[in-house]
C-alpha cells in the first residue's frame, strides 16, 4: 500500500446567510448591476421596462461593475444593501 496526501482544497466554505426575501415589491427599489458587456444595456432596458410595468416598483437603479472579471466594488455592494432585490448576471 502507498500512503499519499490529498492535493485538493479540503475546507468547505462557511454557509452564506441570505437576507430575507421581501414580501412585496410594490413601491420597492430594484437594482440592476450590469457587467457592461456588449448588448447588456438594451437587455437591461427591456428588463427595467418590464419591472416597472408588472412589479409596480418605485424605482429601478442601474449600475455597471467597474471590472466584469472581478467581484463588484465595495461601494456598489454598500449601495445594493438598500435595494429590495438586485438583478446581476453572467453571460457574454
Amino acid at each position, binding site marked *: 500500500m502507498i500512503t499519499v496526501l490529498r492535493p485538493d482544497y479540503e475546507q468547505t*466554505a*462557511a*454557509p*452564506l446567510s*441570505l437576507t*430575507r*426575501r*421581501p*414580501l*412585496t*415589491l*410594490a413601491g420597492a427599489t430594484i437594482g440592476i448591476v450590469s457587467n457592461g*458587456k*456588449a*448588448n*447588456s444595456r*438594451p*437587455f*437591461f432596458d*427591456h*428588463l427595467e*421596462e*418590464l*419591472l416597472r410595468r*408588472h*412589479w*409596480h416598483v418605485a424605482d429601478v437603479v442601474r449600475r455597471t461593475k467597474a471590472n466584469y472579471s472581478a467581484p463588484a466594488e465595495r461601494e456598489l455592494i454598500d449601495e445594493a444593501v438598500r435595494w429590495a*432585490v438586485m*438583478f446581476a*448576471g*453572467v*453571460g*457574454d
Partner: protein
Amino acid sequence: MTTAFVDGAQLMATALGAPGYGFAVIDHPIASATDSELARKAELTVTQAHQLLQPAVRRRP
C-alpha cells in the same frame, strides 16, 4: 445567467457557501442577440425571478 455559464455559477455558489443558490437562466449568447431576442430573454428573466422570489412575493394582477 446565460446557459453557457450555469455550471460555473453553480460551482462558484458552492465555493462561496451557497450551494443550490437559485438563479434565472436564459439562452446564450447576449452579445450578438437581436433586440427582439433580448426582449424575449428579459421576459423570461422576469418570469423566473418571480418564481424564485415566491412564495414571499405576490405580484399585483
